[in-house]
């Protein structure tokens, strides 16, 4: 284990492990409860793999009612619960504790309803993000948020993290595409928030639940807004000889009135790695933008002409259009292989912070300086249109002390994001990774009111403990809950 501390497991719970498992078995079907040490090990971490801890037991329910039954047992017996989707969180959001029961969505995989007349679908939340779009395709519809992890990640995890993707610039993140949720509260009560009608008149509790990182309840079903598929999409690639000019180009495109679906940015270290790995044939220059627009062929042509005019005024090294689907794939190839390419260079941690778009050049320059100070390489590949940065810090996990150095470098970058007017996390969530940095963005009172909200939903502080809120900040609440 490294820098981030987790509280000691509750020994009184560990001592009751057998009773807890038996109580779960009593209310759930035979194969739903996993307590064998070899099997629970599969759930010991998420994509923040430096932190691991097998749970006391894992429950994989098939229905909302089974989730509620499991939740009730845990509540009655005072056992912490860690909700889990596919375990692709990069923030340690799904990291278990030794004294917890993991409630996973792996078997909640049904698509319950597709209603194109009212433009929504209802799913169990264990379905993967990609499969949602796949079942919609024959209907001519799609679900907009598209995290790069979409092959594996679940709608449950997307809702808990308010996940985004490359297409967010135009279509928004999960909260903008979520219409309703069925939630199991810690009491075991099943509650529906929102629904297929547009909005609700009372407090926006659905908005509060989205992005709550499993702190408020377990989401078992969701009503998702679905959109008709665009007629087509085309990327262009624009190379610049400085990060500043690339940043300026992003701002000018946004101001111009063309709203691209995506504007992605890659810097020199990233371009170099990608070139070596994927041979994408990108220009050899300090900064590349990939801008994608949508519509009919004519509409695409008009938008690209606009973008070309903006870019030309800034003397790009290259402006590459895609004339057909193959060209388009070639342009996306390098971007899509960026994480793989970086992986070839060694271990890395992937950060996620957001800065105002106008601060991109300054932030990139400061990251370069910090890289020298910490003696670790960093590459940048990110969603530029909304300032959502993903610096990748390279290190060698086998060399003692390097992970800690990388983490310290990462913390400096995230503090920098906050300093320039941005935030600690744009789409990956706080989890344990950024828990202790929360005080950099929020004053004690700002955190207190959030913890009071948690207290309303989860008075015993059983859900996803020791995440999101710094331990010292939450100590008072956890203590009161324990009494």
């Amino acid at each position, binding site marked *: 284990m490294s820098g981030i501390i987790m509280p000691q497991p509750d020994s009184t719970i560990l001592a009751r492990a057998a009773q807890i498992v038996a109580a779960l078995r009593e209310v759930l079907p035979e194969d739903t409860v996993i307590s064998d040490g070899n099997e629970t090990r599969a759930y010991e971490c998420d994509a923040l793999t430096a932190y691991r801890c097998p749970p006391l037991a894992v429950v994989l329910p098939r229905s909302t009612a089974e989730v509620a039954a499991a939740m009730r047992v845990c509540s009655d017996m005072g056992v912490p619960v860690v909700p889990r989707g596919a375990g692709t969180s990069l923030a340690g959001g799904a990291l278990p504790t030794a004294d917890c029961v993991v409630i996973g969505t792996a078997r909640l995989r049904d698509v319950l309803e597709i209603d194109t007349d009212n433009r929504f679908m209802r799913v169990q939340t264990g379905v993967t993000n990609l499969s949602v779009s796949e079942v919609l395709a024959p209907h001519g519809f799609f679900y907009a948020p598209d995290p790069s992890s979409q092959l594996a990640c679940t709608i449950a995890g997307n809702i808990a993290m308010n996940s985004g993707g490359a297409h*967010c610039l135009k279509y*928004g993140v999960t909260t903008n595409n979520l219409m309703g949720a069925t939630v199991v509260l810690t009491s075991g009560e099943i509650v529906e928030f929102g629904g297929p009608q547009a909005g609700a008149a009372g407090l926006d509790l659905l908005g509060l639940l989205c992005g709550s990182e499993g702190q408020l309840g377990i989401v078992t079903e969701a009503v998702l807004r679905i959109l008709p598929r665009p007629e087509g999409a085309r990327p262009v690639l624009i190379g610049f000889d400085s990060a500043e000019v690339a940043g300026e180009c992003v701002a000018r495109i946004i101001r111009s009135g063309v709203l691209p679906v995506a504007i992605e940015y890659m810097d020199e270290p990233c371009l170099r790695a990608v070139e070596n790995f994927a041979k994408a044939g990108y220009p050899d220059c300090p900064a590349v933008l990939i801008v994608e627009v949508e519509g009919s062929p004519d509409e695409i042509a008009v938008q690209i002409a606009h973008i070309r005019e903006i870019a030309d005024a800034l003397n790009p090294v290259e402006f590459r259009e895609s004339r057909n689907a193959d060209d388009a794939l070639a342009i996306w190839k390098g971007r899509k292989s960026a994480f793989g390419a970086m992986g070839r260079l060694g271990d890395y941690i992937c950060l996620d912070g957001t800065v105002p778009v106008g601060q991109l050049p300054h932030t990139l320059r400061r990251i370069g300086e910090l890289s020298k100070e910490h003696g670790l390489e960093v590459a940048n590949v990110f969603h530029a249109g909304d300032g959502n940065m993903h610096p990748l810090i390279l290190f060698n996990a086998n060399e003692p002390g390097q992970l800690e150095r990388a983490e310290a470098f990462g913390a400096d970058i995230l503090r920098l994001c906050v300093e320039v007017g941005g935030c600690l996390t744009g789409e990956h969530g706080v989890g344990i990774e*950024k828990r202790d940095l*929360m005080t950099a963005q929020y004053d004690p009172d700002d955190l207190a009111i959030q913890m009071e909200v948690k207290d309303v939903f989860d008075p015993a502080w059983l859900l996803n403990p020791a995440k999101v809120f710094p331990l010292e900040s939450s100590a008072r609440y956890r203590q009161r809950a324990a009494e």
Partner: protein
Amino acid sequence: MTTIIDQLAPADEAELSEILTAASGDRQPLRILGGGTRTETAHIAGTPLDVSAISGVVTYEPGEMTLIARAGTPLPEIEAMLEAEGQSLAFEPPDLRGVLGGRGIPTIGGAIAANASGPRRIRTGACRDHLLGLRFVDGPGRILRNGGRVMKNVTGLDLSRLLCGSHGTLGVLTEVAIKTLPHAQARATLGFHGIDELRALGIFSKALATPYEVSGAAFLDGTAWLRIEGLPPQVEYRQQRLLEMFGAHDIQTLDGAATRELWRGLRDVAHFAGDLPLWRILVKPTDAAAIVARLHDLGGQVSLDWGGGLIWYCGPGEASSLRQIAPHATLVRRGGVPGPAFPPEAPAITRLSQELRRRFDPAGILNPGLMDS
């Protein structure tokens, strides 16, 4: 605090905080006024708290599509400033002065507090979808922040969404950060005359299933209207395709100027000015036809927005009969109808909402009873 005071008007956030601390201590209820355009709050007990002096744009960055303004900033001022940069508030906050008989000037804080969203909701989302972050003061006077000024932000619990649409019952907004969008360079409207709601709903669901990004779908007085927006050639293309698709109808087309005019009226529900009871009803669009038929039986008039997802009903009817027809019905203008204005919610949601209010406003001084709880 003395009880002689008949109006409180803090000059800034710090003063507001002091007032709230004192009022909480005295358990003195307050009625929060932004621009004072919502006369429907007049029945709320409490000393008027006029926050319109907490005003002014803090920053506006068109290249970042971000505006930060103090809550009391007049909406017209913001709209003019954005207009000059070719941008706008894409959620088209309705101006309900005509409908509510208010005389004040609407403020950005009031729009956020009410989650005021116009016809473009079907395309670009509601007011709450354009909110990036906010500052507010809670009942006991704590000055609090949530969210930020950037487009993507998942740091901690999303209280911004919670406060948006809370009508001042959780805190008094002092500053909001919102996303602005470049406004469309061109726009046009297609009008289908001489049809009823059922046929209108059929047109809406067909049009909204196309990729032509229909940004308004409303029905009024026997006419269904579809709005399209974008770059000029885009609008031309989309209009053409929709005309082909609905070839069997006799379709009127409106140009940009006429489009603006029409949708401003639809947005503000100008057609239902007056003093009869006015209801705002949220439904699943395909349920709208049956609901509308029953509303007609009550004897009032109906218009549709959001592709049928929003029904405006103006006319007679007891609250209980309205809610029997459609549970998500909010009484926007009382017109003498007694009872709760907000629709009832599931017991668990009511319990959670009340418990949240107790955390944000333990003394129960912020617009008590405005949301009927």
